[in-house]
């Protein structure tokens, strides 16, 4: 991986022995280095989670395939889901936030650098624990190895009667520990944003990237808490004779669902809001216009933050809630679509009348807009609770949330990679490889996830390791698997591009995109402590003001 390459190169450059460089990285409290560590860590797990997905897709290529046993298949989808959410999406987004927020607000580091390092290493420990279950999960009972209860681990499948051994414990503790890491990072981001802004950087002048990460951090503080509480209750159930979720002894399975989804749904927004942030930084620069409706964008995000906490039970329409509860959660789930729609319209407004430049980051942004639109519309279908009774738990819902997480979040993360890689490494990512990566990924993505909606409509439930022939699912599943391989190849192209460009990429200079936020005013990579003198800003686009002294933004805001 490029982490080793980076370490070695840094060592060569400084003439220090590599052990010393390694020691520096392990003990670092620098926000930029921690940001890079978060991102590399997420990339490693992205590849692992991708391999797990590939194993599942091979198994489902045709009916009654026996590539893996049902036990292995169940572990694969549990590990894939847990890995991708907690150890890929969260860390990669925290990594970008860690790296960019201090630079964008003109600060020299995060508010609590040591807490920052602590949070990263907690998250790292969580991922390690989850995967250590492959070795330690059998426990004394010989039951299972890796967790196989699904990433939302519904009760009472996690009770000791149904999940002997320690696999569920590894799952519980891994999620619990990484949750503490997330809370640490959220506190850190909030403190940094509130107290470390440079002179002139009023709240109303913060880049949207910073605003959106502020909202995301606030949500993390609120919703990780019930998740952690539920994990602790589960451990109490399993080892101290508690009966919270133990249905054999009068506990409630539905309570676990509520605890999980009051985390689980806002979590989707915790992941997607930083991606909205990437869009809001990248689209303006490649449209050569300021973001359309900045105050509305901030307001819509805060609105999403609040409303998204009242929608969780739309994951539970089939558990037999009353018609009034179902109606309430239908309404809130549709309402959250309104501010989200407003955001899409504002990005469209930003592009309207601009001069669009189709570099790789912008290509990923445009694909994001189309795909996120579709993901939102299938989300409206799922919000319609009677429609949801047919769609939930089927492959339709799997296709829907992969449209959000891959078509939305992952595309946005790729855009962010292509956009900020020059700042982090000092070199441009290769454009030809980037375009190859983009097109391969677009083709693979649509082949897989467009078609995946249809078996769900034809009655195929999710989480089944095999299926009966003759139900109209066979050909579709084969095509879905082929698409997964195309995506896998695209990711390999991307990883190769990261490594190749690190050594051979064009020199980036300070400001390769002619952008407007403060991170582009310093060298690439930025010096230690970022700013020799703390900058002063007078508008939302400080570098625009510097480049256009005759027509600065500060005149209009």
């Amino acid at each position, binding site marked *: 991986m490029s982490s080793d390459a980076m370490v070695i190169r840094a060592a060569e450059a400084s003439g220090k022995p590599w052990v010393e460089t390694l020691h520096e990285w392990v003990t670092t409290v620098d926000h930029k280095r921690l940001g890079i560590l978060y991102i590399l860590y997420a990339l490693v797990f992205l590849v692992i989670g991708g391999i797990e997905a590939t194993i599942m897709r091979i198994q489902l290529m045709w009916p009654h395939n026996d590539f893996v046993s*049902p*036990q292995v298949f169940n572990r694969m989808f549990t590990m894939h889901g847990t890995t991708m959410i907690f150890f890929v999406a969260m860390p990669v987004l925290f990594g970008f936030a860690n790296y960019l927020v201090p630079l964008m607000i003109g600060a020299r580091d995060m508010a609590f650098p040591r807490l920052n390092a602590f949070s990263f290493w907690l998250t790292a420990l969580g991922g390690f624990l989850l995967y250590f279950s492959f070795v330690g999960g059998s426990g004394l009972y010989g039951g299972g190895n890796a967790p*196989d209860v*699904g990433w939302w681990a519904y009760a*009472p*499948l996690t009770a000791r009667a*149904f999940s002997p051994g320690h696999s569920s414990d590894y799952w519980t503790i891994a999620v619990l520990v990484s949750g503490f890491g997330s809370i640490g990072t959220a506190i850190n981001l909030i403190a940094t944003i509130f107290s470390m802004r440079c002179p002139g950087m009023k709240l109303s002048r913060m880049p949207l990237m910073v605003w959106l990460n502020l909202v995301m951090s606030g949500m993390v503080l609120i919703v990780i808490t019930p998740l952690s509480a539920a994990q602790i209750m589960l451990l109490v159930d399993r080892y101290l004779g508690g009966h919270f979720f133990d*249905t054999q002894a009068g506990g409630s*399975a539905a309570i676990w669902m509520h605890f999980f989804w009051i985390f689980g749904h806002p979590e989707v927004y915790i992941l997607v809001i930083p991606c909205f942030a990437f869009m809001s930084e990248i689209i303006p620069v490649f*449209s*050569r*216009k300021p973001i359309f*409706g900045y105050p*509305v964008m901030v307001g819509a995000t805060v609105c999403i933050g609040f409303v998204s906490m009242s929608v969780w039970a739309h994951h539970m329409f*089939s*558990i*037999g809630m009353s*018609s009034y509860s179902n*109606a309430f959660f*239908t*309404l809130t789930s*549709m309402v959250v*679509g*309104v501010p989200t729609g*407003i955001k*899409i319209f504002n990005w*469209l*407004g930003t*592009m309207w*009348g601009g*001069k*669009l430049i*189709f570099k790789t980051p912008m290509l990923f942004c*445009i694909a994001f807009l189309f795909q996120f*639109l*579709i993901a939102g*519309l*299938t989300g*409206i*279908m799922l919000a319609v*609770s*009677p*429609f*949801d*009774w*047919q*769609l*939930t*738990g089927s492959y339709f819902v799997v296709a829907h949330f992969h449209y959000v997480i891959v078509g939305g979040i992952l595309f946005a993360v790729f855009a962010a990679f292509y956009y900020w890689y020059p700042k982090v490494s000092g070199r441009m990512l290769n454009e030809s490889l980037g375009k190859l990566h983009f097109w391969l990924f677009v083709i693979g993505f649509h082949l897989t996830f*467009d*078609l995946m*909606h*249809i078996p769900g*409509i034809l*009655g195929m*439930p*999710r989480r*089944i390791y095999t299926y*009966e022939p003759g*139900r109209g699912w066979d050909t579709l599943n084969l095509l879905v698997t082929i698409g997964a391989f195309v995506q896998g190849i695209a990711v390999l192209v991307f990883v190769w591009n990261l490594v190749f460009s690190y050594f051979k990429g064009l020199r980036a200079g300070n400001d390769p995109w002619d952008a407007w936020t403060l991170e582009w005013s310093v060298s690439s990579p930025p010096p230690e402590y970022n700013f020799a003198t703390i900058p002063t800003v007078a508008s939302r686009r400080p570098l625009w003001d510097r480049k256009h002294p005759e027509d600065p933004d500060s005149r209009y805001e």
Partner: protein
Amino acid sequence: MLVILAGILLAAGLCIAGPQATNPVPSIFEPHSTPADSILDLSNFVLGITGLIFLVVATLLTYAVVKFRSKAGEAQREPAQVYGSTQIELAWTVIPILIVVVLFLATARVLHAIQDAPKPAAAVEVTAIGHQFWWEFRYPHLGVVTANELHIPVSDPAHPTPTFLKLLSADTDHSFWVPQLAGKTDLIPNRINETWVDPHRTGLFLGQCAQYCGTQHAKMLLRVSVETPEAFQAWVNAQKQPAIQDEKEAAGRRVFENTACVNCHAVGGTNATGRFGPDLTHLMSRATIAAGAAENTKENLRLWIQKPDAIKPGSLMPAMQLTDADLDALVRYLETLK
């Protein structure tokens, strides 16, 4: 989106093109029961609205991408810097809110119609109990117990005889899903759920467990046989009988009653009263074994008893380790349970 819509139409076409006999594709676009019907009507309405939204927004996006691309050789001037517009923001806030109101009202109507439907006196009542990894069906008023294959009468809209299912679970969460009859309702331990269906035509309808319930979630299949009132009554009468006692197969019966079989399985009229596995009183009246995982044939029964993992790895049926002679006798006995 277009691809999805095209796919949906294709899928719907596949179903309609099929012969009038029951189509094995359990598509939600081919409903045969009131709940599934009204869900489909609502779904078509929602698909129409979301399709329209997609067309409008995607057209605007495509137009912007094509129209506003920077042209090569153009002077390096920045475009006009526009910061926003209150009127436009208001427009694209209010219109979506109106759409939400419409969708919500349409949804609330269907919700009420399905969930709060009164139970007519003529309704058939069934208690469905989810087990790892099979279905138990009990008809409390008819005195019938069966497994995995639900038999219900067709419901004439003029004189409706819907089936109301009380949903329970013996272990983990499950979900009852027969797409052509109704949407999903979960079976959750320590909780009583309810759903209902009123099939408008006879035939076999396929479904399966739709909530992950453990190792063999995939092979917890579900078959619903919808019959004319006469055929249903005949089936009930047959099921109410105790097991046939064929003295020619006494040896096989002894194997059954002297091994662990009786711990889990019941055979009406004998001392086998286990509740952990399916009731076998009328085993041979069922088309499948192992919750639909295999056809109910002599070879499959034999394999299922001796090596359940060959059919359904991870199922809770233990391998019985019988001698060949005992196994043959046992299978012959089971085959008398008509």
